[in-house]
């Protein structure tokens, strides 16, 4: 039931949620998570996302299937962009739909934790000083321990 998209184009949060909800009356709760390019100190010029075509889609589908096995979801969508993005641009969208709010919240939280440490994407930041690959955070791997 989950659908996964890996694309260069931007996405429309409202339209994506509307498409998942269309004509349905059995859904009680919809959670969306959107990740954006953050520039805390004003020094970021751009962020380029490299990915592993084929494996990225497969890995996101595996993560979504795992979420559907753990929670009673009525819908699930993951969109992740690649390519060159600017500060403020949207990077990733996760939407979960369920009859119950706790299931929708936990599944979206879980999906982001797994996506962060399993989906084959690599960020390169461009600043005045040049371009550098972003180092992975231990906290992202540690976050997986929240979901035994």
């Amino acid at each position, binding site marked *: 039931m989950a659908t996964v998209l890996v694309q260069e184009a931007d996405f429309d949060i409202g339209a994506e949620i509307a498409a998942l909800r269309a004509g349905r009356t059995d859904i009680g709760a919809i959670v969306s998570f959107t*990740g954006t390019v953050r520039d805390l100190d004003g020094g970021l010029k751009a962020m380029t*996302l*490299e*990915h*592993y075509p*084929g*494996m990225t889609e*497969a*890995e996101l589908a595996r993560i979504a299937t795992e979420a559907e096995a753990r929670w009673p979801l009525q819908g699930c969508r993951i969109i*992740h962009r690649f390519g060159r993005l600017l500060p403020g641009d949207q*990077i*990733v969208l996760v939407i979960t739909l369920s009859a119950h709010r706790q299931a929708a919240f936990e599944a979206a939280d879980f999906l*982001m934790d797994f*996506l*962060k*440490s*399993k*989906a*084959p*994407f*690599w*960020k*390169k930041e461009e600043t005045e000083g040049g371009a550098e*690959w*972003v*180092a*992975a955070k231990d906290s992202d*791997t540690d976050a997986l321990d929240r979901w035994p």
Partner: protein
Amino acid sequence: MQLIYFAWVKERIGKSEEVLHLPDHVGTVAELLDYLSGINEIYAHALSNRAMLRVAVNQTHVGLDHAVKDTDEIAIFPPVTGG
């Protein structure tokens, strides 16, 4: 085998992919990394920090003791940083 490199592994090796013949004595991911590091100094440098390398075989994350075959697609990359 088909080898694919990403992020700074790709930049250090200087190519994004290549086809190499898997020697008979190379049976695991760890042995493959040892073999590649022995090709020349470029590979040795790119693959020197094992703690910062991750490997996928046929598009699935695997550990260092995972088996490799000459028909596999093997990707080597740093820890992922998407999302």
